[in-house]
């Protein structure tokens, strides 16, 4: 049950993201909703879930739009795993902490993207990339975080979502 819910959320996200969000752009920047989802899952269910959501959400994005398969999958997976490490270790309120974490996650992803573009030999002066894409994207993404986090925590109050993943010998 849980896995189907997650798959449905990821599919809905990729469709919304490519069809609807271009119309919400501000100065050419749109929020990174997949990062919001990854952060929510990682904060509510730990690094295993965060990592898997990041991996498959990223792969889906790569397959449909990516220049090379695996790039966003890698970024979102690592971010999901790292954020998940905080699970049950810090106090997570409803607004400030998720907002701050998704902001940092977005900055981290921006830096990984700059690194990738550097290897692709796409020349962008780093301060331009930072001021014109990374920072605005992080801010815009953070704005949407409290609402998404609220909805996701409602979802996690359902019983079927609280079953744990198992990495165990059979």
């Amino acid at each position, binding site marked *: 049950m849980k896995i189907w819910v997650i798959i449905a959320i990821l599919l809905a996200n*990729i469709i919304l993201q490519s*069809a609807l969000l271009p119309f919400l752009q501000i100065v050419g920047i749109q929020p990174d909703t997949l990062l919001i989802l990854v952060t929510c899952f990682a904060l509510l269910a730990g690094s295993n879930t965060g990592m898997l959501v990041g991996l498959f959400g990223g792969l889906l994005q790569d397959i449909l*739009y990516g220049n090379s398969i695996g790039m966003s999958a890698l970024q979102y997976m*690592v971010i999901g795993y790292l954020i998940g490490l905080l699970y049950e270790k810090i106090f997570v309120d409803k607004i400030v902490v998720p907002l701050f974490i998704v902001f940092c996650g977005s900055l981290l992803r921006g830096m990984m*993207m700059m690194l990738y573009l550097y290897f692709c030999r796409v020349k962008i002066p780093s301060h331009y990339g930072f001021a*014109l894409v990374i920072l605005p994207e992080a801010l815009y993404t953070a704005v949407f975080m409290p609402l998404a986090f609220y909805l996701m925590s409602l979802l996690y109050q359902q019983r079927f979502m609280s079953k744990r993943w198992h990495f165990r010998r059979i």
Partner: protein
Amino acid sequence: MPQFFKRLPLVIVILLVVLLIALVIVTSGQRDKLTTIEGVVGEVITPVQGFMYRIATSVSEFFQSIGERRQLAEQYKILKDRVTQLEQQQLEMDETVRENERLKALLNFKEERDQFTVAGVRITGKDPGNWFNTLTIDKGSKDGITVNMAVVTDKGLIGRITEVGKNWSKVRTIVDGQSSVSAIIERTRDNGMVKGNNTLTFEDGLCRMINLPLDSDVVVGDRVITSGLGEIFPKGIYIGEVVEVSSEQRDMFKTATVKPGADFQRLEEVLVISTVNE
């Protein structure tokens, strides 16, 4: 052993990271065909995506039309004047065209190969990130589309096909940072390269035309068209208009900022054309 299983997630993460990096390296660069998985996922999602994209477009157009309605009366007057003016020009044009035809026949000019329209397609989605500028369209190899075909609208060049699936394809637009198109200034015939600029998002939707010769007298308002070099794009497709010219002393070339004729924010239907008439 328990210690090991406690660490298992970390081990898996590291393994996956290595695997994904390998995958990135393998799949980066030019690919003509999509993998099977890519094809299947695309085939399933494309129709749904196309539907959503159409809904979103009509919603945003609705809000736009409210604003436009106010200026209608004013614009009507201006347009009427313009029509009279254009009719006059049309007459002169017709005359020139006829003269041109006569002269061409006289000189026994070989006609350039006709552009061949492959298909009219719908945009189904736009790359969700802020770093690249790619589109997906709803037709693919089934309709005769192949890699490197040019994508245009009546307002100008959009980009070229980079990957083809069975019923969908990816398009890299000319404003993408990784795109470059060989172009000429229509008036002065100066050659240059039009490169995407979308990574500097404040100028979103603008391109740079680089490698223009220093002695070129390109000015703001000049039209930029494709040169046909490289044989990806047919010759003479309108790209856009020069909005700024800059030349730095240390550079050996001039650079012009080009505003594409097509509106990349509101694309719905486009044409795929090919240089070769099959």
